[in-house]
């Protein structure tokens, strides 16, 4: 039975290696049962303390899937200088690459257990900004279009930025000796949303005599961020976006988190959770801006401006003629955005001497694709005061992610720090993502039986 679970986990791990983009998978915290924040990763998680309070604390997770610092900046042999090796950076890039910043500011959360029912209430502000950019875009800037004659280059960046206030209330309940289930309901208040709903900027250079064409169908949706009317290219200059003060009240939504914990024996713990199922409806300052059309540049007809009837070559007029087939539409919207669903899947085996070994997976849907990561974690409780742990994870073909975490329990105070990639602090030139979470919680009323797991 256990072998089957492990087979499933490694099968999933193998399949995920084909994934090309990274998300903000926070993994280490899931394997830190003494930290209140583990509860956010699985609403069925039972805190080892009867009463828990989480004070305001930040979480930052940054990812760049394109290349590492050292891929771009390389030492010049025989000198103490370095040089930009853009060719190498381009070589190691994927067709599409992601720069992502995920932040969570936990405002105040607490949980308590009455009999076997654990209740939690929490509030936090979550924000994410993901920018997807194609390798072709940098290749065009660096190498020019000469090498892509006859091909179509994808120049469309995609982005997804969203910030919202989350107020959650949840409960975890054992339904049998081995099964615990958890549910969390969340009220969401959207603060700002901006995302590409359609991203097509296909650039091509004809192999005939190098005519250039840009085929555009690019749509940006915004919520609670007022850019005003944009119906011409001229109106793009002098944009002065403002955040609508009514947004907090009216751009709202709901979400739920589901979780389950299975304890087949005293030494095994299996967790699964499905988070962020929900939506936010954007009603305030919600608009769609869409640019559609094809911009063709076939060269200049000299006779058009060498004619004695014309005064001379006017670049502005000429550019206007080029973009005459491009239309810009501006539509007032009332739209919904889904949260980015996540799942956690983990199994933990507790060895003697309070040593735990875990295998886990995480998935998140970002920019319409599931991004998965898989890891193996180990942790050890050094008495009732200190726990340390580490996690090795694989994501996007990156094999050098080594995380570490520590929890210090000083009386009721729980101090913790966790990073899924400590190497990003020690060897930042070789890192493609970094994450850090630090915080202070209160934990009162320890249950040894639960803590053992």
């Amino acid at each position, binding site marked *: 039975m256990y072998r089957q679970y492990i087979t499933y986990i490694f099968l999933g791990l193998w399949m995920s290696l084909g994934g090309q983009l990274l998300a903000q998978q926070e993994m280490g915290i899931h394997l830190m049962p003494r930290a209140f924040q583990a509860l956010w990763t699985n609403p069925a998680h039972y805190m080892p303390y009867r009463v828990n309070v989480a004070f305001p604390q930040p979480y930052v997770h940054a990812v760049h899937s394109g290349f590492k610092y050292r891929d771009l900046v390389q030492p*010049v042999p025989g000198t103490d200088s370095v040089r930009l090796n853009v060719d190498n950076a381009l070589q190691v890039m994927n067709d599409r690459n992601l720069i992502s910043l995920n932040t969570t500011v936990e405002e105040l959360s607490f949980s308590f257990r009455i009999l076997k029912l654990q209740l939690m209430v929490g509030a936090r502000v979550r924000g994410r900004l993901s920018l997807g950019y194609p390798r072709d875009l940098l290749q065009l800037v660096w*190498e*020019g*279009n000469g*090498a892509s004659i006859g091909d179509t280059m994808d120049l469309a960046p995609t982005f997804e930025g969203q910030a919202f206030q989350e107020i959650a209330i949840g409960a975890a309940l054992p339904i049998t000796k081995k099964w615990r289930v958890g549910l969390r309901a969340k009220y969401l208040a959207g603060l700002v949303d901006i995302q590409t709903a359609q991203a097509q900027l296909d650039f091509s250079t004809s192999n*005939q005599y*190098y005519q250039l064409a840009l085929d555009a169908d690019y749509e940006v949706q915004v919520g609670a961020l007022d850019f005003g009317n944009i119906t011409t290219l001229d109106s793009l200059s002098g944009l002065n976006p403002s955040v609508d003060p009514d947004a907090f009240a009216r751009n709202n939504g709901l979400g739920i988190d589901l979780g389950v914990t299975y304890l087949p024996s005293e030494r095994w713990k299996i967790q699964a959770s499905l988070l962020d199922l929900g939506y936010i409806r954007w009603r305030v300052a919600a608009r769609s801006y869409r640019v559609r059309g094809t911009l063709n540049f076939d*060269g200049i007809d000299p006779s058009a401006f060498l004619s004695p009837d014309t005064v001379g070559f006017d670049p502005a007029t000429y550019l206007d003629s080029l973009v005459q087939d491009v239309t810009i539409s501006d539509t007032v919207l009332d739209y919904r955005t889904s949260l980015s669903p996540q799942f956690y899947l983990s199994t933990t085996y507790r060895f003697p001497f309070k040593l735990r070994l875990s295998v886990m997976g995480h998935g998140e849907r970002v920019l319409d694709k599931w991004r998965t990561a898989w890891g193996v974690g180990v942790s050890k409780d050094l008495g009732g005061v*200190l726990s340390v742990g580490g996690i090795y994870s694989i994501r996007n073909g990156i094999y050098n992610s080594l995380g570490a975490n520590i929890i210090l329990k000083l009386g009721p105070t729980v101090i913790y720090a966790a990073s899924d990639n400590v190497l990003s602090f020690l060897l930042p030139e070789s890192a493609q993502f970094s994450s850090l979470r630090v915080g202070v919680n209160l934990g009162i009323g320890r249950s040894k039986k639960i803590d053992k797991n």
Partner: protein
Amino acid sequence: MRYAPVYTLLLCLWGIVGCEILDETTRLQTPDWQPDIAIPLIDASVSIEDLLDVVDSSTFLTFDPEGRVGLTYETDLITATGKDIVVLPNLFIPMPSEAIAFTFPLTSIQTIGLAEGQLSLAFNSNTSEASEVTLNIQGLKKDGVDFSQTFSFNGAGAQREVVDLRGYSFAFANGQLALSYEARRVGTGASVTLDEVVVEMENMDYNYAEGYFGNYIFSLANDSTNISTSSEAQAARFRLDDPQLTLLIDNSFGVPIRIRFEELEFVPQKGEGINIVSQALQEGIDINYPSTSEVGEYRETEITFDKGNSNLADALTSIPRALDFDVDAVTHPNNDPSEIGFVTDTSEFTIGIRTEIPLRGQMSGLNLSTTRDISLTEIDDIKEANMRVITTNSIPLEVRVQIYLLDEQENVIDSLFAERQQVLAGALVDAQGDVVEAAEEIFDIALTPEKLTSVFAMEKVRMVANLSTTNLGNTTVQIAERNALQIQIGFRAKF
């Protein structure tokens, strides 16, 4: 807590590494940016009208209903006026008796209207009393009435009276004037004898003359008129299918006039021209003229020379530079005194030509060459470049070009092509010479590093072009209004 030193150590390491990265950026070498950029430069369509935009006020394009193009040159060669056809002499008419008949020198002229002139009557009187003399001239009229003027004089001696003849006209009977005078004393009416009576008519000019004017030869020009700008262009073979030369003569002289061309010759860009030979030119051209009832009106004469009535097709063997001509004209070429005509002081005739060249024919070996100063600023960054040229030609004309790069002394330092490059392929034509399919030519101008060195070193450039109609000039072609040339040029540079 015993692990705290470990975390502290890791934090310090992180700080050190972070500082190292920041320090690296100060030692960053400028990257070697070597883009390969390709852009389209030119996309131009040129119509046949644009291409033949060599016209001035005299030259223009014509299109027939089927859109076939012709080149027409039209200009006035000569304008001749008839002031000299009739020259009125001064008349000195002594009157030894009171009545005489005087024969007018221009016997064949029947009527002359005077625009200018003075008549004077001179005599000697031997009486001292107040007297009058009346002079009558039959044949000199004003408003249909014969001339009759009475003059008063006092005292003996020489007397002279003057009359303005403006508005008078001669209307001869048998070419003669009848003059008489009569002198009397005012008081008694007694006759007075006058001596040395003379009538003079001087400074006469006419505004109308009618009659037979004889063989008056107009002094016309031996001249040349430019048709196109002189150049070195000279086709080895140039054959127009059916050129036409039309003489257009507008005449307001009311007399028969014959135009005679001693020379009419298109002057080629190089070498000698061939005189146009035609029976009409040899025999002379009798031009139309208005009748005596059509004074002031113009009559047109148009005569066309083509390959059917002249050697024009042989004479027009290149784009002509000029038209040389030597022409004169003569009145009453048949010497028939019964041919009564008229001239006025505004009579004129104009000889114009219209050369119509239907752009249909064959041409080969037309060489053009031009040298221009040009100096390009060296763009160090360009290591290699390529120009892609595409011509889509629906004109039945093919062009080969070589471009020589010259130093200041015009020594050739390089050429753009290894050998003369065909830049325009002639459009395909059917048996009638009409274009049926445009021809496309694609070629690259490879600017290798060595070639770029020459390009940046040149001070002058010489372009040599060789033009011929489709199929190297061996096929008759027709230029049509719909013919056009599309030129597309792209540029690719590696930096």
